[in-house]
């Protein structure tokens, strides 16, 4: 138990350091882009007909604390970020935490459900494919996998939209029906969300399924040829019971570990798919923040949040693996 506690603590510390590095990278990038928040805000004001002088920009800089040294600003930002406070958006002048709020959780929920979908298909199918010698099944799965890899999600989304518009006359876009968009959360709104969310979940899950299927199959066919499986067979075990009790348990451990990377991949696809399907969650907010208003504060916050959820997931899967496999929790303490 003590050992496990030390392992968990160690992992938590590593996750924390990773996040620190990430925050540094993100913050520096946001600093490197030309122009700062004060200029952005005031240039926006100028388009509204207010005369702006250099002195105004300077005083705005002082007000926002942009005149302090880089490290000080970074540390304030990081301390705030870990408490969920990202300051105000450059242009909208709203607290970013309020602005993102539910949108971020919806994005995360969509991403996680697409991963869930991917693995609930990939694990059983991959195991069956690895254990069967059916050439037709194996080859068609291979082609499906390659298609999943070669067809980026946004092309798939476009194709689905094309087919839907041509044959069904519906565009299948958006995340809420009009009447629920600004309503408070309720059961009806949730059901409405589900009605719209299946499509992005399916599209994002598509290539994740292809990836996962390949990994499960490869790992499983490595394990299945090993001696302990033959030994179990010799003892009279067969079929699903054999597969689940012996090779699958070994083959699936690396898969649990790869969840974080899959989440990363889904987050990569999310903004573009969101744009095509005109979803209104964090991904499309990111595009808004970038393409339309150059809002570096908001963009930095979103990227930090996305990365933080990946790091958290990595941490959780590490802990989960350690619970399942004592060898892992010993490995770190060599």
């Amino acid at each position, binding site marked *: 138990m003590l050992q496990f506690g030390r392992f968990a603590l160690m992992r938590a510390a590593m996750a924390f350091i990773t996040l620190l590095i990430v925050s540094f990278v993100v913050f520096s*990038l946001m600093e490197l882009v030309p122009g700062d928040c004060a200029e952005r805000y005031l240039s926006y004001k100028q388009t509204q007909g207010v005369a702006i002088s250099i002195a105004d920009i300077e005083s705005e800089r002082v007000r926002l604390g942009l005149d302090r040294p880089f490290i000080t600003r970074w540390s304030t930002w990081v301390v705030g970020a870990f408490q969920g406070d990202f300051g105000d958006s450059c242009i909208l002048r709203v607290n970013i935490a309020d602005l993102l709020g539910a949108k971020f959780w919806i994005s995360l929920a969509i991403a996680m459900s697409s991963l869930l979908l991917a693995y609930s298909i990939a694990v059983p199918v991959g195991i069956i494919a690895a254990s069967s010698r059916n050439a037709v099944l194996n080859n068609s799965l291979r082609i499906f996998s390659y*298609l999943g890899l070669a067809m*980026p999600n946004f092309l798939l989304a*476009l194709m689905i939209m094309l087919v839907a518009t041509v044959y069904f006359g519906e565009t299948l876009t958006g995340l809420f029906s009009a009447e629920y968009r600004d309503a408070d959360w309720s059961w009806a709104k949730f059901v409405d969300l589900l009605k719209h969310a299946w499509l992005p979940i399916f599209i994002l899950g598509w290539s994740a399924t292809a990836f996962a299927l390949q990994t499960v199959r490869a790992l499983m066919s490595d394990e299945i040829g090993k001696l302990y499986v033959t030994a179990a067979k010799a003892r009279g075990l067969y079929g699903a019971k054999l597969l689940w009790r012996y090779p699958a348990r070994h083959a699936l451990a690396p898969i649990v570990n790869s969840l974080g990377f899959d989440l990363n991949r889904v987050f990569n696809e999310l903004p573009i798919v969101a744009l095509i399907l005109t979803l209104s969650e964090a991904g499309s907010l990111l*595009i808004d923040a970038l393409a339309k208003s150059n809002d570096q504060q908001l963009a930095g916050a979103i990227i930090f949040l996305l990365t933080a959820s990946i790091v958290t997931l990595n941490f959780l899967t590490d802990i989960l693996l350690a619970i399942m496999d004592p060898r892992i929790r010993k490995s770190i303490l060599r």
Partner: protein
Amino acid sequence: MSAKTMKSLQQDKETYFTASQSQLIWARFKKQRAAMIAAGVLVFIIVIGILAPALSPYDPTIAGRDRDYLNGAPQIPQFCDKNGCSLRPFIHGVERTRSAETNFRWVEEPNEDIRHYIAFFVEGSEFDLFGVIPMDTHLFGLQGDEKMIHLFGTDSAGKDIFSRTLHAIFTSLQIGTLGVLISFVLALIIGGVSGYYGGRLDSVIQMVTDAVRTIPAIPLVMSVAAFVPTEWTSEQRFFMIAIILGLIGWPTLARRVRTHLLTERNQEYVLAAQLCGASSPHIIRRHLLPSFTSYIIVDLVISFPYMVLTETGLSFIGLGLKDPVNSLGVMLQNVTKADVLLNYQWYFIPVLFFVALVMAFVFVGDGLRDAADPYSDSKK
């Protein structure tokens, strides 16, 4: 067994044992049917891309537009129609009408009595083949200048989609190559330092690499690309995007370089070379680098399609390349409009080429990976 076959067997063995690594990889690669087919497709697409200006009948930019055929449907060359057959392929003339009945949209009506014959090696707009040889001969086109042929139709400005597709393939190949090269150099430096020196420096570099790898690349790239000034020329944008792609690609590659170096560094042959008095640069150049170049090439091929796809995605949302440059993403920018989805589905034809290109790269990469792995035979 006769002496002759014994001798040829001996020779086979000799060639096998003295074969260089690239020869071995090629021998194993040849055995994989899918990868060989994919390699054929890949070479074909690359040749198309390089020869794009000569193969495409028109200039892909606004200079080559067809004023009279905006949003025009694909024209498929025919050999026969109601007026009989001809040995030379031809297309029918088109008449455009617009009225209240068609909602004031231009509607094309093929006129089967007019034939435009397709000619080969016609003279058209001038271009520089491979960027240096000035030419004005195109593979095919229509005789005379007043009518144009559009195999894949035209877009809303009247630009020929077939010509644009071919040029877009070339753009994708260029940007992929540049991106891969940049990430390769970065990976070689960072991974090389990390792997060769090892120890504490290695741990720190690995930690940073891992942290950078957890940041979702596309949102990050989007945020950087969004701040590229709009007044930049298309060439500047092009290099910017290539550099960005290179910057995302390096962590994975750097890790592989480091792993190879770490394992190879402690091999006996390196020790032997050291004992013979070889200097570090000599060992790196003559022993370490050749030991894993094949793996690195495989990694480069595998990472290529992701570069292409990232560029496509970025251009698609308007943060990548911009109009005078042709790329798949640029071509797809306007297709989400209901008008296009309902009426002009030929905008999607280029997608097929790109799926083929990416698939070919994935298959070839997989085949190369299997071929470069000396144990792949025993696995099966």
